């Protein structure tokens, strides 16, 4: 066998590489069985679709718990920051009809970012405790400020502020956030028995 291989170089190359491939394939197959991870991939996928504002407007402490709850059969229209687009995406993932946003949990708004009017801030740290994503910097009796990049625009810091110095500013579109706008749905011509009418397909 070895002699045949050493004499025939092409065959040797073929056999050794194929052999290696089969060997490693077998090993990996065995390892895949041995190190199998039991996880619920649907929760991860749902969590990725949610906007990660961690705002708690859905009634759960954060996006991951809500994702878990959706996986357990909860309604999918409880996320105001995500809005209709998130609902549609989840509906598509779960293959169910997309309901409209549940008004009980809040209305969909344009994305905002918190801004502290810094000369009015008295340094009470109340907004820092309210922030679910630790996007507010500051210390007691010192001015606070919002890390705009980390802020998810969840509004939770506005309520606790005793001097009302927090504004929610709409995020201006710049080159980093600009996206292609979704094309408008087309009007399609539908022929009926009497006459041709325009109807919006939604």
């Amino acid at each position, binding site marked *: 066998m*070895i002699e045949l*291989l*050493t004499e025939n*170089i092409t065959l*040797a*190359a073929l056999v*050794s*590489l194929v*052999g*290696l*491939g089969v060997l*490693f394939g077998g*090993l*990996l197959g065995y*390892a*895949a069985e041995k*190190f*199998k*991870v039991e*996880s619920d991939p649907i929760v991860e996928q749902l969590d990725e679709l949610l906007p990660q504002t961690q705002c708690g407007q859905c009634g759960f402490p954060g996006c991951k718990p809500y994702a878990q709850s959706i996986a357990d059969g909860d309604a999918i229209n409880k996320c105001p920051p995500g809005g209709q687009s998130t609902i549609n995406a989840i509906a598509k993932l779960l293959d169910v009809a997309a309901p409209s946003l549940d008004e009980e949990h809040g209305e969909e708004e344009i994305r905002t970012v918190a801004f502290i009017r810094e000369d009015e801030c008295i340094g009470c740290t109340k907004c820092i405790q309210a922030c679910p994503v630790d996007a507010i910097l500051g210390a007691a009796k010192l001015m606070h400020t919002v890390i705009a990049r980390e802020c998810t625009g969840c509004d939770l810091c506005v309520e606790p502020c005793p001097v009302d110095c927090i504004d929610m500013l709409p995020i201006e579109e710049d080159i980093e956030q600009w996206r292609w706008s979704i094309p408008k749905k087309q009007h399609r011509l539908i022929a009926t028995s009497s006459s041709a009418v325009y109807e919006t397909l939604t």
Partner: protein
Amino acid sequence: MVAGLSHYNKRMQEFAIILVSSILINNYVLVQFLGLCPFMGVSKKLESAIGMSAATTFVLTLTAMASYIVNELILMPLGLMYLRTIAFILVIAAVVQFTKMFIEKTSPLLYRVLGVFLPLITTNCAVLGVALQNANKDLNFMQSSLYGFGAGVGFSLVLIFFSAMRERLAAADIPQPFEGAAIAMITAGLMSLAFMGFSGLV
């Protein structure tokens, strides 16, 4: 007894030289400029850098051993040295895949932190570089594994230092044109200069 002891000392000395040489003098990242993608990509956070270092060291040691075995038992006897590159890539891919499964099982958190960079260890040129250099230098099994391990430790050392610096740089007041990747490149260049000081150590 004395002869045995001096032999033992000699071997220890040799191992120490191999380690110092692969960690400091021929550092794969800063002196040989191999494996720069994870060096730039995973160095933004110290935690993920430590995780990446551990994973890469593990993979490097394991591939150095595995590729030695493949080279010595399959490629050399059959005169297939020209297939080294492709055979070693096969070995590396298998080892990385195994590491991925292993980490996913043992530490899901680390698995999430490393994310896409874990499978990308496959394309880390330092890994292939170690395997090919070991084969070219005709090292024995112990030396090969030590070289692999040393290369991993060197990679870890540099990656952890660099990420620690980048964490500080993120908070530093850097002139705008130098922000982000630019200052990281300059820092890496300065580190490389510093590591050149080790040449001629042994």
